[in-house]
């Protein structure tokens, strides 16, 4: 996208006021988004975004300027703007740029162009019909398609030159079921760092049919009881629990500041010994998979917790420099060229355990089973988390019984991790719908086997509350 000689020149300019490191991040993003709602293909949007950001490091001060024009004058202006915080003379040389190779490849088997826009739109129309055919209770359906190509190039004054051409395909569906003034809805999606082969490996029609069936079933849901009880969380998307309640607290920015409960706990027991947790940016085809992160560091697999012992945090370049650490874990990510990277998760999961998932449900005398949820939120320093279930069932004497509505699970992440007492042998990553927000949006995957939390606070409006 920009010539090596120009990159060299811009980096040189960025170092002129005494910075110790300078970087150029160039990005070219093209996307197509289709959205069907109310049985109509309402949105057909194509986007083209191109730009570059120049980042300059003066010790722990980081300055940034971006431009949406890639000509020499605009890049040099950005370099000067970012360098303007310095007031010394140049003390660092630009090392000759050498392109770094990665052993990781995420080939696109079916390029976006292999289907016409009309064919893609047609698929959304068939999803709408399939969901409505499930029953007259289905009163509304949405369906969405997204293709995104985010091609990045990065050059820094330490001679690093990398490139990562990221293709994502995503499908989303949403259904609303209604009966006598009671509404239930389910929204789900699937996707990954893949081309249109996604649509061959997953049946979007069957998936939305299943969602419609479950939404109708949830119309019979009873208000969730409130109080402390045993909670069993589903495999796959259930891993959002670890992501929110523990993963964020293992991101290096919260560690170096001391605002995380896991600060200074490397080598200590932080989880039940049946738990091993991993962040892996190298899994083929996943939403969080990278060749290089947005600092130019190779993606890697990082064991965060091994048999209950805290092993490692997730690092980016800025936090490594802050503490004098030489090797980042490849977790520096940014939303776009308009943003600076920060430590983020990639594909994060609790590893395989030993229990049959059926056995886990059968072990519960009275509790709830969370089969689906709308995401979660956690409080960084305290580690408290909350999840709102979109699909939940009462467990009575080891059996799933009544569907429940309005269930909220509330707990403390570090405490829950120590308490989880059963881990299933059904490890799965989520279908590919995770978007993590930490000031910036990042595509991530989460995952886990079925797990049992012996005691968590469950909120809901039980029958006595009324309204």
């Amino acid at each position, binding site marked *: 996208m920009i010539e090596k000689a120009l990159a060299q020149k811009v980096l040189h300019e960025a170092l002129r006021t005494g910075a110790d490191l300078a970087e150029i991040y160039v990005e070219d993003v093209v996307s197509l988004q289709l959205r069907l709602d109310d049985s109509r*293909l309402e949105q*057909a949007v194509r986007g*083209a975004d*191109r730009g570059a950001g120049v980042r300059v490091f003066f010790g722990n001060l*980081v300055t940034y300027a971006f431009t949406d024009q890639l000509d020499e004058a605009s890049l040099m202006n950005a370099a000067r703007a970012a360098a303007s915080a310095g007031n010394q003379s140049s003390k660092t040389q630009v090392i000759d740029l050498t392109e770094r190779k990665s052993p990781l490849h995420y080939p696109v088997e079916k390029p976006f162009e292999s289907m016409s826009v*009309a064919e893609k739109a047609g698929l959304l129309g068939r999803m709408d019909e399939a969901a409505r055919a499930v029953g007259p209770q289905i009163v509304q359906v949405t369906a969405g398609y997204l293709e995104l190509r985010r091609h990045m190039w990065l050059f820094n004054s330490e001679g690093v030159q990398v490139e990562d051409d990221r293709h994502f395909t995503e499908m989303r569906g949403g259904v609303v079921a209604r009966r006598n003034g009671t509404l239930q809805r389910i929204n789900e999606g699937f996707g990954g760092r893949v081309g249109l082969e996604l649509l061959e490996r997953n049946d979007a029609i069957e998936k939305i049919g299943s969602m419609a069936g479950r939404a109708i079933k949830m119309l019979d849901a009873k208000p969730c009881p409130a109080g402390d009880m045993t909670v069993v969380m589903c495999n796959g998307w259930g891993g959002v629990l670890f992501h929110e309640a523990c993963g964020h607290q293992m991101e290096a920015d919260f560690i170096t500041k001391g*605002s995380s409960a896991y600060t200074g706990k490397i080598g200590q027991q932080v989880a039940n010994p049946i738990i091993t947790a991993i962040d892996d940016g190298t899994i083929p085809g996943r939403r969080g998979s990278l060749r290089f992160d947005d600092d130019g560091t190779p993606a890697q697999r990082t064991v965060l917790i091994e048999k209950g012992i805290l092993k490692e945090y997730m690092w980016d370049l800025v936090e490594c420099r802050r503490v004098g650490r030489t090797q980042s874990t490849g977790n520096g990510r940014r939303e776009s060229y308009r943003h600076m990277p920060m430590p983020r998760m990639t594909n994060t999961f609790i590893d395989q355990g030993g229990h049959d998932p059926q056995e886990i449900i059968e072990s519960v005398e009275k509790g709830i089973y969370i089969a689906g949820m709308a995401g979660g939120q956690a409080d*960084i320093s305290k580690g408290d988390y909350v999840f709102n279930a979109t699909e939940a069932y009462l467990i009575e004497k080891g059996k799933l019984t009544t569907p429940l509505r309005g269930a909220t699970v*509330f707990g403390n992440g570090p405490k829950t991790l120590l308490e989880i007492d059963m881990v299933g042998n059904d490890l799965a990553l989520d279908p590919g719908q995770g978007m993590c927000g930490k000031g910036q949006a990042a595509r991530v995957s989460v995952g886990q086997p079925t797990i049992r939390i012996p005691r968590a606070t469950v909120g809901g409006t*039980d029958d006595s509350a009324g309204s």
Partner: protein
Amino acid sequence: MTNYLELAQDVVKRAAASGVQAEAIITQDSETQIKVSKGEVEQLSQSSSRGLGVRVIDGGKTGYAYTSDLSEAGVESTWRTALELAAVATPDALRGLPEPHPISSEDLEIWDESLPNIPTSDKIELIKEVERGALDYDPRVILAEFCVYGDNINHVYLANSRGFAGQYGRTVTFAEVMGIARGEDGEMTNAFGLGASNFFRDLNAREIGREAGEKAVSLLGGKPVETQVGTVVLDYFVGAQILAALAQALSAESWQKKRSFLLDRMGQQVGSDMVTLMDNGRLKRGLASAPFDGEGVPTAATRLVDEGVLQNLTYDSYAAAKAGVQSTGNAARAGHRSLPGLGPSNFYMQPGNVSREEIIAGVEKGLYVISVMQTGGIDPVTGDCSMGANGLWIENGKIVGPVGGVTVATTLDGFLNNITQVGNDLRMVPFFGSIGVPTLRVDNVTIGGSK
């Protein structure tokens, strides 16, 4: 410098030449962001950007394309792409661009003339003062995280083939911080302080920091209470999250697509008579105020719920055409990258006449909720409303101690009907759009704790 309004009009002319309706938006932003930590600047970002978005409606079929490339080739390919995409959309006779209406020249007070000339050093000083405000509140405040100042000087240029051409400028400044407090046993709590205004000089740095520090410290040592049905007092920041869901439930699109728990209840009593809800795109010094909306329709003040009675919904031109009414000027737009879509402008609950202190003093037993966590727990479709909560326990009108690790659950119906007091302390927050609510007393809420 390029005249962007003329460019937008030129793009419209080119696209419309093939017999379609066309609209072009150009947005231009100059942004500054500064993050400080422990008295030092950690991040400083200053940049300008602009982009073009083109909407084409061809026989009721909509196509949209956007670009950051304003070169002749970029512009040309963008409107052509929009035209091509329209071919795949479902035709809808009600889809069309609104006819032009005169735009009032009333000063909405959304432009801080001085902002472009405020030196970066003043902004750095302000955000350092925010950090000090949090840390100085109490020695137990050990850290100020996410201590960020930001501003945006934004220009919007909009033109369409029905003859509309308009432009406006808007400035937004904000500062926020998360105070982290640590108790004797090592337990940590946190809370946000934030301020936002169109005018830099309106930001009260010390107060933003103090709010974060005070709230974080007050929550230290919070324990669950027993599960019960009782009274809660909601801090403005908590109420705002519930109002964000109500704003969605009160959009005509949600009704037309059967996605609102309030469906088919027009003219009915949907809340207590203390509840009056407004959407006002012309609010003076409103963070979402503008002379016209995302498709060029004049903005307006719309009374949605009046003393508990559902009176109106928000409309953009499409929803209005469908319902056979006038648009309320609620076509929202997140810059040039998005199609206009129906959304709130400045959405708020009319304040009452009691102070927060008076509300607390009137509670025999209940929870003053300071912070909540929820994701999808407040649902404008199903009407469910449950969240994790931290706060302070009230007994006999006095705050007696911190509460943590509880859930607060009702329904949105229950919320609206059980509001028994509305404070006089309306505060607009820049989250979820621009949303404001005073301190509220709500009865009959399930507080889920131990047992």
